[in-house]
């Protein structure tokens, strides 16, 4: 598919899959070397940026996020801003204030979240790379559900300047693509120190040595609670890895079961402070009633435009930080994060990566998602949150298809700053794994 034909069919393809919140109307790629899309929580000069929230409706940023600027400098043309859960708050992209992207393998099913639109675009368009953002699994989960490769690099590897914050100690910008080679190529484009994000300024150089994995560790805690299809596909993938000459060893990682509650405490604590800035002034929705006193004005705008899950997470995060509760929740969660990091470091002394399925089930149907409680949603993230609170680089690669025809992914977690070993794994795996692309019609 040429760049021109992608652009010419953008409108009709998007009306089927709903991956874009905003998109280009250009039908000519001009001098562009490649097309890319970006999650809608990355600021872009020429397209509305809402992060999936109605409170930001009408926000046209005055600057490009560092990652978008770098992709443009490398010759990329931004074709659309992808739909997502509001501020990244979700596992299925169904918590969007706007359009909900549809899974390319079955339109009645979710793309995963929160970078659902990005995974959808990566699966649907040929030669397409999409920028995603992961806070608790928001790159690997949708990559798994949409059958593409996805990588979240080490925390601090990629500048977050221009990213609309969810949880500052957790947010990581990464790459989704149907081609394994794009992970190395485009992390190479967006990584690097940026004085506008001090957390990016301590990173060691990104290596490109092609180092191969010799040994992976499968934690017992990572193969519990799986659907039959996921378990079968994962076991087949382990056989394939052994055939490739990689040792597979089962290990104990007792800290993993504490990662989910620790993650939701840290993430909502940070989110509730970050979202305090949205009060109906300066950007986005500015239609509050100026006759009201400031308290009433702020509460009015926030209550009207924040969605259901945003309110829930603000309440949860505000509570867990409150005097009398913060020791039990926030302080303890920070300690648990360190325990999880130590657990990874211990296992990674003897292994190149920790490996488990990315998600415990295949992409669920929208009608089943609507029956899930908030806690059910959070629990679905138990495999992706540990690497995210540890800030360790992690990658989902497609590893099979369920009896429902839906893609299944597995997630490799490497040590801090060791993206190279993940890139090489993806490139080797692509040669062995037969990917089934979805049938795409406009």
């Amino acid at each position: 598919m040429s760049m021109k034909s992608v652009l010419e069919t953008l409108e009709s393809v998007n009306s089927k899959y709903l991956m874009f919140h905003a998109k280009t109307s250009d039908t000519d790629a001009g001098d562009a070397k490649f097309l890319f899309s970006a999650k809608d929580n990355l600021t872009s000069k020429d397209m509305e940026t809402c992060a999936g929230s109605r409170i930001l409706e009408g926000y046209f940023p005055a600057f490009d996020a560092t990652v978008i600027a770098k992709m443009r400098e490398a010759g990329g043309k931004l074709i659309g801003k992808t739909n997502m859960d509001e501020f990244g708050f979700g596992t299925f992209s169904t918590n969007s204030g706007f359009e909900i992207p549809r899974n390319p393998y079955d339109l009645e099913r979710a793309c995963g979240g929160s970078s659902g639109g990005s995974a959808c675009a990566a699966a649907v368009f040929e030669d397409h790379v999409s920028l995603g953002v992961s806070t608790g699994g928001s790159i690997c989960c949708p990559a798994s559900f949409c059958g593409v490769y996805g990588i979240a690099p080490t925390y601090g590897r990629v500048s977050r300047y221009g990213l609309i914050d969810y949880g500052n100690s957790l947010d990581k910008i990464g790459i989704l693509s149907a081609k394994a080679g794009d992970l190395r190529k485009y992390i190479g484009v967006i990584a690097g120190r940026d004085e506008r994000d001090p957390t990016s300024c301590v990173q060691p150089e990104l290596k490109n040595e092609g180092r191969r994995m010799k040994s992976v560790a499968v934690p017992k805690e990572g193969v519990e609670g799986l659907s039959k299809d996921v378990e079968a596909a994962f076991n087949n993938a382990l056989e394939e890895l052994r055939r490739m000459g990689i040792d597979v060893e089962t290990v104990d990682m007792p800290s993993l079961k504490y990662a989910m509650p620790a993650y939701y405490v840290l993430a909502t604590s940070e989110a509730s402070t970050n979202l305090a800035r949205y009060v109906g002034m300066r950007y986005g929705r500015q239609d509050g009633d100026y006759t009201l006193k400031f308290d009433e004005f702020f509460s009015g705008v926030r209550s009207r435009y924040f969605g259901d899950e945003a309110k829930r997470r603000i309440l949860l995060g505000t509570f867990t930080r409150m005097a009398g509760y913060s020791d039990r929740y926030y302080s303890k969660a920070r300690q648990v994060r360190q325990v999880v990091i130590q657990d990874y470091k211990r296992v990674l002394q003897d292994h190149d990566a920790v490996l488990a399925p990315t998600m415990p089930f295949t992409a669920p149907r929208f009608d089943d998602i609507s029956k899930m409680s908030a806690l059910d949603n959070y629990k679905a993230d138990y495999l992706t949150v540990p690497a995210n609170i540890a800030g360790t680089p992690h990658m989902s690669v497609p590893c099979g298809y369920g009896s429902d025809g839906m893609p299944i992914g597995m997630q490799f977690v490497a040590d801090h700053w060791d993206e190279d070993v993940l890139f090489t794994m993806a490139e080797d795996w692509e040669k062995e794994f037969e990917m089934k692309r979805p049938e795409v019609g406009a």
Partner: protein
Amino acid sequence: MDRETVERVARTAHIKLTEDEIRRYGNDLAEILTYFELLDEAPGSEERGINPVEIADVLRNDEPRMEIDPDILLKDMDTYERYVRGPRLS
């Protein structure tokens, strides 16, 4: 979570809740916090870093600069004579 706590948290967070939301979020948060009791039995750590990797303070030179023209920023803001409009303080 009891009604009084939900209302107090919502007030702190500048969110107005309907009767239905108070009940619904109260139930949801109670269920979630019960699950979070798992943290009570989790091992602790002497280390309590804010970030998952070590971060050094990196400061730029203290030289004034302006990268974005304020008029461009003001363009999309609700303003009155180049002042950003906001609600009454009292």
